[in-house]
């Protein structure tokens, strides 16, 4: 593949894949430590009905109504999960399971009943995204990276996920101490004056924003995988949260790049003819990295066991 072809066909999907992975992995670190890893799963499922409703209300496949619908659905889901947990008196994992499967199923029904079959809004799209289709036609060479006219032709998903990923990285840096403290010891955090409920709620909202922004480009499979796999693998590499978060960013980017390349070329190397789903391959790569970390990570021994 020549440089020009790479830029036109692969650059945008690669960057979008990497940024989506990082945007999800950052809050994923804290969700896992708070034993709320499933919330990423829940959010990425419930955005489906939100996007369908956004489509039905606006009548067009336009970004903002669908994003607003998705964000609205995520908030509805978070409130419902809390309600089910308290009223039903069940643990939060079960509450999430009840809420997100019901809402996802409702989204599928809505999709089937509505007039959406003609557009590229379907269940497969929701699961796998459309990473391969995010090509940059104006990217005819490296010079295009400096050409404002050509840059304007970049897929709209790219600046959106770039903004979201940057915002999440900035929030993580600025609120590092309260986040770490309230994740480790919520009761104590409250006695030193931290608004722990607000911090917990904001974390979930930030995760929802990451899920919604990434969902559009890469589908829910990557979103679910990236909330959990890179942070979980990173935990096995180090005993310090600062380094764990850095490792999770490295693993997220590595999964996205190697998964995308493997999906594009792997089948050819093996004698097949067609490329396979990049989103599926990225998620698989993330799982493989997790497995390797389990086998070879330096801190895989439960640190509570003393040698």
């Amino acid at each position, binding site marked *: 593949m020549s440089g020009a072809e790479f830029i036109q066909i692969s650059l945008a999907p690669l960057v979008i894949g990497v940024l989506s992975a990082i945007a999800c992995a950052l809050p994923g670190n804290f969700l896992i430590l708070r034993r709320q890893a499933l919330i990423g799963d829940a959010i990425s499922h419930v955005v489906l009905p939100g996007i369908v409703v956004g489509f039905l209300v606006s009548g067009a496949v336009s970004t903002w109504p669908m994003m607003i619908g998705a964000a609205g659905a995520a908030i509805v889901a978070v409130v419902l999960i809390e309600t089910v947990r308290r009223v039903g008196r069940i643990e939060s994992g079960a509450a999430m399971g009840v809420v997100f499967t019901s809402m996802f199923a409702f989204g599928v029904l809505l999709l089937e009943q509505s007039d959406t079959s003609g557009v590229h809004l379907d269940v497969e799209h929701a699961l796998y995204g459309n990473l391969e289709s995010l090509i940059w036609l104006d990217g005819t060479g490296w010079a295009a990276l400096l050409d404002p006219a050509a840059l304007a032709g970049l897929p709209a998903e790219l600046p959106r996920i770039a903004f979201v990923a940057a915002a999440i990285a900035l929030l993580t840096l600025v609120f590092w*101490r309260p986040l770490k403290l309230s994740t480790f010891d919520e009761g104590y955090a*409250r006695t030193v004056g931290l608004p722990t409920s607000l911090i917990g709620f904001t974390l979930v909202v930030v995760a929802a924003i990451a899920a919604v922004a990434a969902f559009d480009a890469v589908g829910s499979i990557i979103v679910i995988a990236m909330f959990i796999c890179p942070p979980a693998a990173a935990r096995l590499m180090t*005993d*310090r949260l600062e380094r764990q978060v850095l490792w999770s960013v490295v693993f997220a980017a590595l999964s996205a790049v190697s998964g995308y390349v493997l999906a594009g070329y792997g089948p050819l190397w093996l004698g097949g003819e067609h490329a396979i789903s990049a989103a599926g391959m990225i998620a698989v790569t993330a799982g493989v990295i997790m497995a390797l970390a389990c086998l070879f990570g330096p801190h895989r021994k439960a*640190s509570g066991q003393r040698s």
Partner: protein
Amino acid sequence: MAQTDLPNIVLAANDGQPVRDAGLADSALAVREMTVSYGQKPAVFSVDASFGEGRLAAIVGPNGAGKSTLLKAALGIVPRLSGHATAFGIPVEHAADRIAYVPQRASVDWEFPTRVIDVVLMGLYRQLGLLGRVRTKHLDTARSCLARVGMEDFADRQIGQLSGGQQQRVFLARALAQDADLYLLDEPFAGVDAATEKAIIDVLKALRDEQRTVVCVHHDLTTVADYFDDVLLLNVRKIAEGPVAQVFTADNLQKTYGGRLATVHIDQLRLAAG
């Protein structure tokens, strides 16, 4: 200061009486009509209690008596059904700079990826703020607090590598870093080794001797007389409070524990006459 929260104080001041007559202002910690409920049954019911400044006090009672809950409700960690709490005469919420809380060791995940020194530095959060840099003086403070509990050699250990007693000492070191006037500890002696118990009680007595106030949720009746100046006997309701020498009586213990306390057991305690 939200005076509306404190009708007792306002009344006392209006009457021209010394504020201490309200029974709140000269207490390091005071709770009034505190009721907490997790379900249908109250865990703590209408408890009035106060802890004097410069005293080492215990909250004692059977399992499920609401000891920890009372502490948490006073701190605002669990929601109160009714009642309020003051520290040094002002609402506890506004006294965060003067209060250090040591939660139960089992309340956190010790597999959390962090080091001993980082946990102690958490005690300096109010000094450091969001983005303040950790300077040498902060590290020195944290290290000297670790030294006070005999844990200076463990600063760089991952917290999951510690024994239960060592974990408890790290939690105490974090509270020491806050340099507070009121220390509230939830079961600091639960499941710790003898050396740790000695180290902790020595630190707590030293704090008391510096005119600071220490309140411990405590479950071991055999050490109450040795360790503490004052005791609050609690079983959902308050049974008795005051100096150990006056209220730690067989009669009060029987009221607190009901049939759960064997008479043989009582004979082994150094009880107050009464």
